């Protein structure tokens, strides 16, 4: 039973990370109606910036805050410069531009920082927290706490502020929003900025666990995508819960089903998600889209 709980706990830890990136994906989707395939690479690049600053001698939290500011501004700049020219193009064109952005960021990071792995510091103490026979890593607990705080702040922002409402409106119905005086283009840019910021948080939380390299996010993005889909692309809370479910399932399946082991655990986790989607096609917590004919 102890092993079971231990696996659940470490599943929750990794799931928290998937969840935070999934949250970033869902955010940008809600604010812009586009799934941003470059999200993971944006997070990776921000994490490298944080690494540079910490290595230059800045205290962790100063570097953390500075990275968030840079990521936010960077996200806005990318939207204004790169995405805006294809704003009205078909969705697949935007997807391809995102893929272009992804390869650029990945290649640049490899060029500037080389492809060797770098250790990334954790802001949390190194000693484990022990409850009964189950061990919690302090970093895992801290990472989940930060994810929950970010989620809470976003919820408040989107639910209770005028700006948050304007952003949701701009994504859902650009034409009507423009008529009531919302600057739709800037709302999209803000959405990208916020998503880059959330991604940067996720990157800085995951880097101490898996080390920093230019392909840091490729694997995690897949899980994040799966988590967001499982939770439903219309539900930020669902994204986090989806992340936790994916993390725990993956860990338990890898431990208990012998013939699967670690080799096929990704496949199995995805198969489970697919089965869930067959039953609930718009995710566990998503609203199904109703079309007007």
């Amino acid at each position, binding site marked *: 039973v102890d092993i079971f709980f231990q696996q659940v706990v470490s599943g929750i830890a990794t799931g928290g990370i998937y969840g935070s990136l999934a949250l970033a994906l869902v955010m940008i*989707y809600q604010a812009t109606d586009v799934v941003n395939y470059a999200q993971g690479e944006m997070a990776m690049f921000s994490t490298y910036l944080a690494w540079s600053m910490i290595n230059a001698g800045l205290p962790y939290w100063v570097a953390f805050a500075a990275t968030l500011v840079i990521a936010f501004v960077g996200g806005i700049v990318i939207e204004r410069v*790169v995405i805006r020219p294809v704003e009205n193009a078909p969705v697949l064109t935007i997807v*391809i531009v995102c893929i*272009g952005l992804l390869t650029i960021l990945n*290649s640049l990071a490899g060029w500037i920082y080389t492809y060797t792995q770098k250790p990334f510091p954790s802001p949390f103490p190194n000693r484990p927290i022990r409850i009964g026979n189950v061990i919690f890593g302090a970093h895992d607990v801290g990472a989940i706490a930060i994810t929950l705080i970010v989620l809470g702040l976003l919820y408040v922002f989107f639910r209770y502020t005028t700006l948050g409402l304007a952003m949701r409106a701009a994504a859902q119905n650009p034409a009507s929003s423009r008529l009531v005086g919302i600057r739709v283009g800037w709302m999209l840019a803000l959405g990208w900025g916020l998503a880059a910021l959330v991604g940067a948080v996720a990157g800085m939380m995951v880097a101490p666990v898996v080390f920093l390299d230019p392909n840091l996010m490729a694997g995690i993005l897949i899980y994040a995508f799966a988590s967001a889909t499982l939770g439903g692309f219309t539900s930020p809370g669902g994204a986090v819960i989806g992340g936790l479910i994916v993390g725990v399932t993956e860990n338990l399946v890898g431990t208990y089903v012998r013939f699967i082991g670690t080799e096929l655990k*990704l496949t199995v986790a*995805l*198969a489970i998600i697919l089965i869930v989607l067959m039953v609930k096609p718009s995710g566990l917590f998503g609203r199904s889209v109703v079309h007007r004919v």
Partner: protein
Amino acid sequence: MSPQRLGLVAVIVVALALPFVLSNFRLFQFTLVFVNAIALLGLNILTGYNGQISLGHSAFYALGAYTSAIMIDKWSVPYMLTLPAAGLLCLVAGFLFGIPALRLEGLYLALATFALSLAVPQILKYFEHWTGGSQGIVLSKPDAPFGLPLTPDQWLYLMTLAVLAVLFWLAANLLAGRTGRAIVAIRDNPIAAQAMGIDTALYKSLAFGVSAAYTGVAGALSALVIAFVAPDAFNVFLSITFLVGIVVGGLASIPGAIFGGLFIQFVPNWAQDISKAAPWAIYGLFLIFFMYAMPLGIAGSLRILWIRYATRARRDPTGTPVGSLSKQ
């Protein structure tokens, strides 16, 4: 003869002349362009014409490639016969995958197919007995039959070209007819299509099946041309490359598949020539500027140019376009 038909004949003549002009390596590259083009046409039938996004076509490509490789390696089947076998198997596999995919739309379908292409390398490694695990299967390049005086590369080029021509002709006929109209109608408005009496479930699964069959044949051809299959070649990036290919080439366009095939074969090489340090950054820049310049892909831009040219040619001597609204 219409200008389009004249252009087509010119292209075919050039394509037939190439193997006697180019070096073996260049020829190999062009053979791969054709292989890519067949796969892209397959994906385009699904994504461009039917509106279902797939990030899973590397799976069908892999299925085709391994069908061909295993049949040749384990059962010594003549390599020509492995092409229809791969196509048929992928048709069935695609049709079956298309049935559960009916419930999914847009992003959710993208995830489902994405999962498929992620799972494939792992599954291929798992069934080591058949697939040779991560080592893959090594084949030998087939010689030209009937004692034709051709090198293996020349023969493979001509064979791929022939398969391409047949498959493109079939696709053009399929898409121009009743089935094609049904497939496009489902993309444009599924509810209206259903109201018109189109069996959307059947046609969507069918589009999935045909699309997978094309991609499977391309996979089988790639196994013959490269004479090697290994699981890691069929990763998610291959699926993404296919998607890049159809969008750059032009969605819902048959010649677009050829333009896309040229792009995904040659542009990464050019990027490498420009910058050894960060080739993918150059590739990414190229991709983004390409999309700015031609948001509808190469075929889309050519179509617009053609329409402009045609309307100008039809103007009357005073310079007003026919049917213009200038009188109102």
